[in-house]
């Protein structure tokens, strides 16, 4: 039973991480209908910028974090302006932008290796504390992952609900054409979601850098799990992305209580297949 409790705690932590990735990726996906796979290497790039600013340039950590958020926003906006928008204006085919996003993924990932080298990057000098809650242990970095979801997710929910731009995003998510007809500048909204979604990626990236370390390929699992969280939770739903992230996190951890970890990489796919068969619109998706 102690093990199950520990695995539940791990599920809560991992679920928070996946959910945060999911809401950043999902915000872009739901609003622009772009499957932005380059979200993965942008997530990795932000970790690298933070590492470089803190470990190599010797900046205070808060400044390094600020720089990496700015880097994420710049990379996100450039992706949209240079790659996606020109392609979207020329072709309605989602396949073209999907292929472009895969190409962009490769370019950014390789650039990271060229600029920073391919070795592991880790942060020294910031250690985590370990807390024991009875038989369950959790580190301060893991608690930060949970807190980050509450803060970022909460702030995003408030922004979407109570601000003009937030409502414009919601309108575009619901129906982009209608939003344009009623006077919403959908191009600006697309830029806005790329900026916000990319900035969100910086938060889990930095926490993983602190908790584990960074590598050029860390973006693959990040964008993969973000994508799964969105599809399982329901495209276009913030709470769906959160629910999807937690479902995957818990199943990946607690689901392996009595099963070999040999199955770990398959279990997320099993959830995806079940969801696609039983509930194709996801947990909170809207039937269209």
């Amino acid at each position, binding site marked *: 039973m102690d093990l199950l409790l520990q695995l539940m705690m791990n599920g809560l932590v991992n679920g928070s991480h996946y959910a945060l990735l999911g809401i950043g990726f999902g915000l872009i996906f739901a609003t622009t209908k772009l499957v932005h796979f380059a979200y993965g290497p942008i997530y990795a790039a932000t970790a690298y910028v933070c590492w470089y600013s803190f470990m190599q340039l010797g900046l205070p950590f808060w400044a390094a974090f600020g720089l990496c958020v700015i880097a994420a926003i710049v990379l996100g906006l450039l992706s949209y302006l240079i790659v996606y928008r020109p392609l979207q204006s020329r072709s309605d085919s989602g396949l073209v932008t999907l292929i472009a996003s895969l190409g962009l993924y490769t370019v950014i990932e390789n650039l990271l290796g060229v600029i920073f080298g391919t070795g592991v990057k880790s942060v020294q000098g910031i250690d985590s504390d370990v807390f024991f809650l009875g038989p369950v242990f959790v580190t301060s970095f893991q608690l930060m992952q949970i807190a980050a979801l509450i803060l970022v997710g909460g702030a995003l929910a408030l922004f979407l609900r109570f601000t003009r731009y937030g409502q414009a995003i919601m309108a575009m998510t619901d129906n982009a054409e209608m939003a344009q007809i009623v006077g919403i500048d959908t191009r600006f909204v697309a830029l806005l979601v790329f900026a916000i979604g990319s900035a969100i990626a910086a938060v889990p990236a930095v926490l993983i850098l602190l908790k*584990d370390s960074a590598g050029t390929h860390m973006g693959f699992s990040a964008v993969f799990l973000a994508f799964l969280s969105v599809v399982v939770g329901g495209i276009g739903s913030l709470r769906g992305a959160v629910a999807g992230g937690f479902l995957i996190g818990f199943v*990946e951890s607690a689901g392996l209580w009595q099963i070999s970890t040999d199955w*770990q990489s398959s279990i997320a796919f099993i959830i995806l297949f079940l969801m696609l068969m039983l509930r194709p619109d996801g947990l909170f998706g809207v039937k269209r």
Partner: protein
Amino acid sequence: MLTILKKTALAGLALATGLASGSAALAQDPESYKIGAILAMSGAANEYGRVMSQGINLAIEEINAKGGIDGIPLEAVIEDHKSGVAKEGVAALNRLINLENTQVVLTSFSGPTLAIAPIADEKKVLLLNGGGVSAALVGASKYLFHNRSLASDLGLAALRHAHGLGLKKMSQLVWKNDAGESIEEVANKYWGAMGGTIAATEYVEIGASNIDTQIAKIRASNPDFVALWLFSPEPGLALKRLREFRFTKPIIGIEFTPDTQKAAGDASDGFQYTSDYFTATEEYPWSKAFSDAYEAKYGEKPDFYAANYYENVYVAAEAIRRAKAQGGAYYRGDKLADAIKADPQFDSVYGGKMTYQENGVAKKKVALFSVKDGQAKFFRYVSAD
């Protein structure tokens, strides 16, 4: 008229003979000896490809600077198996054979090496492995030789060390690929025979970013020690997590690299591991010269992967020299393999000589290290026999 015809025929015959002998000479002595290599130049494990290719390029530069092999230079042709993708390895070998006429290929990673072994047999290509560690590689091709201790040898040496420490109950973290599973197989077979028990076996994907579930299960199994059948950088993550969660008992593994250290940080202290051992010493001038040249060229010290591939180029060059001395159409993979089998002793950059055994694996010492303050300290040699 008949005389003219006879003269013309004779001239034609002479020309044809000349051309034939010329092409035979061409077949015997190529313009350059192309040393093929199939490495992880991209993908999650591209760090291996980087250091291995650096070792290869340095060796080729050195040999060419000394006039190549009887004036014929060596040339590296490096292909990419994308971090262990078997089909990429097969495509790479086919390119090396069909486009480059390569007779020697330096191979790496168990999966691609196993996949190309039958093609090497069919096309008679010499394969020199300095990185793949799966036990399944032994005998995979009659032209395959290894200067890397296989994972099962390293694992067995690690188990012998654990047994020597009086440890009984083991939990193991296994890399989910052929190399990891080959050690698991040996561990399952021999640890029980040594009087030990296995409390838990958990699996880690290559490039895994989150192993909290595995760590929780390992910790819950309450072992006397944890065996890490993992390769870089995964041991770093495992060490960090295990120590973070107050697992204070011994952790024993089979590899420790700078990347492992970076990922583990202070948690690497006390980690013990068995490994091929490359260190430059004054006692062995070649090891020192290699280490100095490598550091001067690349700005970092060579690890044993760089050393193995550097050494493999010299093995290939020596095999070519020996085969050439036999005469005939010597530049063929089977002839080069025969040259190695006929005299299996070669100079080793590690110091002294290494000897290829009947199974194609070079007999090398396996070293036991202990990590202190982030530095690996040589402890002693351990037998894998």
